[in-house]
């Protein structure tokens, strides 16, 4: 295990107060350690950490474009192999970079089987450009390109099942995690790093600015996502689910009502049908993953 007491992400970065992705960056680096090369995509994390010459990264780091991190990582991995070097190659990219515009490069890199770990920090929209929807935006979330309005309840589609897509590529290790469960997150990243081949970890990173909650609520909101069954923390090895974080489930509205992006479901009038649709998604998750802890009465 690497030395987790090391701080590899420097103070002075420009993330918003209470930034979930900033917490993800710190935790990830604790798990990854110094013998690594990080590849970032264009997005909040890249922007808040690297205005020239103020880099927050104390490990080798590279950013090229929005959509090519896994192709850049492929090249780095190949070069390291050729040179007989031992650094671990780790991508950390946003959900927009991962679910949408980077799909081609990701699919290619996973199919080719490069030895690298791809971490998606999922804040469920394009935050850097002003909170537009992505393929990771959940059903009914209001964003600047999926606004709730007189004829809209916000984003019309549920989140894309990215872990399943990568498992279908034959990825030996795929996991989901949340910054609200730091030990679990770090353990999963370490497992991904130590599994040869392309591995994927998708990390739920609540965004105070984009989702609309107070900065001190970041960890709490992340916990509620897991406790309501809307975000499931699980692991897959060779395509099979091997471990799931079980919960005593709370109703989804406890998660929804603390975020401005879902406010239209409660005000000016409560939208029972929409809330029920979201509850049904959580119920499906519960069934599919066996989420519920049976409480003895």
């Amino acid at each position, binding site marked *: 295990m690497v030395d987790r007491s090391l*701080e590899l*992400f*420097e*103070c*002075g*970065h*420009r*993330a918003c*107060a*209470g*930034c*979930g992705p*900033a*917490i993800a960056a*710190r*935790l990830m680096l604790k798990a990854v350690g110094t013998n690594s090369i990080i590849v970032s995509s264009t997005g909040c994390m890249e922007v808040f*950490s*690297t205005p*020239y*010459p*103020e*880099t*927050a*990264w*104390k490990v080798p780091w590279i950013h090229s474009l929005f959509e090519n991190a896994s192709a850049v990582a492929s090249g780095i991995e190949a070069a390291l192999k050729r040179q007989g070097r031992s650094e671990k190659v780790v991508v950390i990219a946003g959900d927009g970079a991962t679910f949408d515009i980077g799909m081609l490069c990701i699919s290619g890199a996973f199919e080719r089987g490069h030895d690298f770990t791809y971490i998606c920090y999922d804040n469920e929209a394009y935050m850097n450009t002003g909170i537009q929807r992505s393929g990771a935006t959940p059903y009914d979330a209001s964003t600047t390109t999926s606004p709730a309005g007189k004829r809209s309840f916000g984003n019309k589609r549920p989140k894309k099942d990215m872990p399943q897509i990568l498992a279908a590529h034959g990825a030996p290790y795929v996991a989901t995690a949340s*910054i609200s469960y*730091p030990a679990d997150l770090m353990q999963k990243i370490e497992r991904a790093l130590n599994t040869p081949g392309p591995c994927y970890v998708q990390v739920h990173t609540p965004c105070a600015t984009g989702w609309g909650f*107070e*900065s*001190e*609520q*970041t*960890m*709490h909101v992340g916990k509620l996502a897991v406790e309501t069954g809307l975000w499931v923390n699980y692991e897959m090895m060779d395509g099979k689910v091997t471990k799931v974080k079980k919960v005593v489930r709370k109703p989804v509205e406890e998660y929804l009502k603390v975020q401005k992006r879902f406010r239209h479901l409660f005000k000016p009038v409560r939208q029972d049908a929409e809330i029920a649709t979201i509850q049904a998604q959580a119920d499906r998750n519960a069934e599919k993953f066996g989420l519920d802890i049976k409480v003895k009465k």
Partner: protein
Amino acid sequence: MPLSVGCTARPGKARGNRTGAWRTFKPDFKHDKCTKCGQCILICPEGCVEQREDEYYYPDLTYCKGCGLCAEECPAEDVEMRKEEK
């Protein structure tokens, strides 16, 4: 300082950006109910909480943006947010 070739940089310069100036609330670590669990260090988005020789935690106010996560997440409720006096 002359520009680097290709817009690269070595670590260190980020610390020049003193984000503490953003703060409107500041954390008061009371060192009263603290159980030294380390949660505040782990979850601080700035990484600006440190443990000193006395084993207590201290925020570096040069960088603390006052998000309040340390106060919210402290299991012992040892941290309190106070309005910044400027």
